[in-house]
């Protein structure tokens, strides 16, 4: 028996240990309590008590259409909002020619109730991938990359891959990771992200087909890239000097106040590519 099997067996035995029979006295106590405990009233209101006439349907549709038009007009009004700010996010696909200054990702540049101050963050340097990045002081380094990230093999593994630099918060409810991979000449950022999305374990199929609507422009160390809000996580991608750089936060967008993408932007605002590029082991080309 190998270690994994022995561990599985021991865990099963540990979990199955002990009786699961509820004592009669416990059940009696519950049923006694139930006799004197009223149920809460369900305050749901029926959708409709009387049938709706065709005329009413038309009027309702017209009102709804007007509301939609008003909302769309309001959301399309000119704003100076940056990525993830209070303005409407651009649904267009990422533009590598976007001006980095227009994409100022630093939360401090656009204060909001949820702005994130990165001044106290701890800087981490990845010699393997040739960048530095900071993480909140109360997070810890979960994994230091001990090997190169390769495509497509590592696109299917989870956040705890040993090819990632991974940071985790104190209660382990949220993880951030960064890594990089060399790509073949001529590879575009959009094409690479699409291929990656199709393989990524955390993606759901609709993530890849609806990616344009989930993508906003992002900036890292003066380089323009794309930030994609997948269903279960948010990731930012940059193509710089023949390498893709990825920073990911494995958590749904609404997990924290202000959104996970704002936290990701804060991470990006602290990220800098090292002058010498990746270390020797990180420079090996990937198949893609």
């Amino acid at each position, binding site marked *: 028996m190998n270690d994994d099997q022995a561990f599985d067996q*021991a865990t099963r035995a*540990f979990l199955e240990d002990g009786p699961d029979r*509820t004592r009669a006295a416990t059940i009696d106590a*519950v*049923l006694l309590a139930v006799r004197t405990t009223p149920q809460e009233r369900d305050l749901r209101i029926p959708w409709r008590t009387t049938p709706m006439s065709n005329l009413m349907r038309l009027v309702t549709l017209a009102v709804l259409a007007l509301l939609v038009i008003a909302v769309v007009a309001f959301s399309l009004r000119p704003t100076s909002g940056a990525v993830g700010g209070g303005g409407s996010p651009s649904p267009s696909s990422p533009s590598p020619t976007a001006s980095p200054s227009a994409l100022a990702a630093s939360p401090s540049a656009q204060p909001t109730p949820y702005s994130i101050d990165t001044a106290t963050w701890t800087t981490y340097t990845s010699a393997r991938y040739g960048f530095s990045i900071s993480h909140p002081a109360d997070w810890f380094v979960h994994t230091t990359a001990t090997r190169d990230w390769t495509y497509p093999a590592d696109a299917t593994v989870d956040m705890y891959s040993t090819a990632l630099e991974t940071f985790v918060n104190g209660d382990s409810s949220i*993880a951030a990771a960064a890594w990089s991979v060399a790509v073949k000449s001529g590879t575009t950022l959009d094409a690479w992200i699409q291929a990656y999305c199709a393989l990524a374990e955390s993606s759901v199929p609709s993530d890849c087909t609806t990616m344009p609507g989930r993508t906003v422009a992002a900036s890292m160390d003066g380089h323009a890239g794309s930030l994609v809000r997948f269903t*279960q*996580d948010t990731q930012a991608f940059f193509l710089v000097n023949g390498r893709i750089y990825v920073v990911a936060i494995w958590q749904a967008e609404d997990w924290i106040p202000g959104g996970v993408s704002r936290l990701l932007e804060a991470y990006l605002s602290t990220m800098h590519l090292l002058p010498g590029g990746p270390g020797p082991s990180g420079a090996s080309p990937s198949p893609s």
Partner: protein
Amino acid sequence: MDRDLVERARSGDQAAFADLVHQVSDTLLGIARRILRDPGLAEDVLQNALVTIWRKLPHLREPDRFEAWAYRILVNACYADAPHNRRWASTVRVLPIDRENDSDEYQALADRDELEQAFRRVPLDQRAVFVLHHHAGLPLVAVAEVLGIPGGTARSRLHYATRALRAAFEASRAQDHLREGRLA
């Protein structure tokens, strides 16, 4: 689960609810006991959870999802009651030392004891994911749904709980090797 029974209990039928309680109480107790690691506390939590289930049943939208809904109430009851628990440390088993015979049995006991102690140190939310997945047999997606957390969170909680148990298991095996060395 009998949908009709759930519907009747939801409408206030106490006899139907009694039948429901008999059907689900053992499963719920098993989950609570494994999360809390304290049989007495688990019975108290089960009792509270079942009364809460009765109270809130009219709010259950989909009777077919009664079990998952009940799991959620139970786990929340575990979270609510556990901080008041002061008995966790008192039930740690004391192992006999240097038993030369029945080494397999000794090893199993040692493993279980290490796992027990390690699991008690794991945060409740991670324990809940571990128990629902490995004991109740729910896929991680269903665990996430029951607990109302994103799938990625369920995955990371499971990872940390498993990592803690594996470390304890490996420590137990290392101690056993040392013990064998001393006896040799």
